[in-house]
């Protein structure tokens, strides 16, 4: 059953375009999407997903499952990096362990988007408020990561003075992608409340165009992920194993929490995907600034080159199978 889900997932346009990008690199095609075009699509996707989430959050209100789900999501993004950190410390120093742990505690918006497309394709409903969980799970892991460095590292490191609590909060909340996602969510919320006629006018841009833009971006992500593969050799097998095993562990934890929250299958999958995905936007930007001692190739190559493709191709359908097995259908 899982293998049929995997096949169904692989045969959707977003995943097919992801493969098209990957194969381009493997067969040495000179296909490239030059900067800053990936940035355009990445900004667009964050803006659109945030805006749409805001609209639906306003419709659903903050009642029912919304607050418990969102708080549990935030909690997960505090616990997961601690767990990762403990595991990573077996092989890595404090700096690298904290940076990688923060990446895996945080989320990948594009993985979330692909999971939404998967659900739509399967005809499984899900709620708009899950975008709020997405937006709020981006930052906490950064805070945990930086606190771990502050506590664990030698006090006399040259940059230690820079990691003040204010600086940590700044890096966590105000990096471009978290800020745009949260801001667009808020604008969507306000628009739905005060200006419902504007929703229809935004729809062609933030709604109709979304699926195609997602495909275009995944084409680029396929290229980028495949380009990262060679540098994975240098990261060693421990980290390679971590980049595949950790998402599965996190997904398992996520399913248990989703079950406790009695989430619908659709919401449960999105919750699980948030736990299982790792950040390659917000976290690397923050870590580069505050923990330059950590090797950026470690946290970028694993998240982009392994965890992201794994989740997109296998993870989502496998987690769906897990959800179907472990969560009794309520309604």
């Amino acid at each position, binding site marked *: 059953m899982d293998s049929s889900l995997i096949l169904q997932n692989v045969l959707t346009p977003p995943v097919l375009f992801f493969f098209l990008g990957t194969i381009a690199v493997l067969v040495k095609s000179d296909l490239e999407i030059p*900067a800053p075009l*990936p940035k355009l699509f990445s900004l667009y996707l964050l803006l659109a997903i945030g805006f749409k989430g805001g609209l639906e959050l306003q419709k659903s209100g903050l009642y029912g499952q919304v607050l418990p789900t969102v708080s549990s999501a935030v909690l997960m993004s505090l616990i997961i990096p601690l767990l990762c950190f403990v595991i990573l410390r077996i092989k890595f120093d404090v700096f690298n362990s904290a940076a990688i742990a923060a990446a895996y505690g945080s989320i990948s918006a594009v993985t979330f988007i692909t999971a939404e497309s998967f659900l739509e394709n399967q005809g499984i409903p899900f709620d708009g408020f899950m975008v709020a969980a997405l937006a709020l799970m981006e930052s906490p892991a950064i805070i945990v990561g930086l606190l771990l460095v502050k506590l664990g590292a030698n006090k006399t490191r*040259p940059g230690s003075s820079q990691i003040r609590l204010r600086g940590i909060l700044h890096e966590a909340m105000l990096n471009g992608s978290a800020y745009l996602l949260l801001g667009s969510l808020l604008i969507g919320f306000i628009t739905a409340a005060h200006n419902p006629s504007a929703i229809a006018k935004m729809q062609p841009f933030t709604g109709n165009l979304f699926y195609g833009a997602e495909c275009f971006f995944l084409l680029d992500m396929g290229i*980028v992920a495949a380009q990262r593969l060679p540098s994975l050799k240098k990261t060693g097998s421990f980290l390679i194993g971590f980049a595949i095993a950790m998402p599965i562990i996190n997904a398992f934890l996520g399913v248990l929490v989703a079950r406790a929250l009695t989430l619908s299958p659709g919401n449960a999958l999105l919750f699980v995907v948030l736990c299982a995905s790792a950040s390659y*936007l917000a976290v*690397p930007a923050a870590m580069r600034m505050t923990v330059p001692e950590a090797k950026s190739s470690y946290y*970028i190559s694993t998240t982009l080159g392994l965890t992201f493709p794994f989740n997109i191709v296998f993870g989502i359908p496998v987690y769906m199978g897990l959800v179907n097995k472990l969560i009794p259908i309520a309604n």
Partner: protein
Amino acid sequence: MKRLDLIFSERELQSVIIALEKCGATGYSVTKHVTGKGPNSLVSEDMEFTGLGTNAHVIIFCDDSLIEKLKPILDPILNYYGGVAYVSEATPL
């Protein structure tokens, strides 16, 4: 006169420019989107959308005295965050 070439991550651009202005540099030029490799890093084009950012190349034409003033300020930044700084001779056209 001298020509100073600085290549480092664009994430530190703001602090380098502040350093330049504090030392009284009358001018400088910045090229962004520079990629490259150093002893500690590999900077590729795809880092632009991840938020890691690529490198900036800053060129400063200036008197020898400014070079002396800049050295103690720039050295710690480049040592901690990475990057290179080289000086050569240059004469105004």
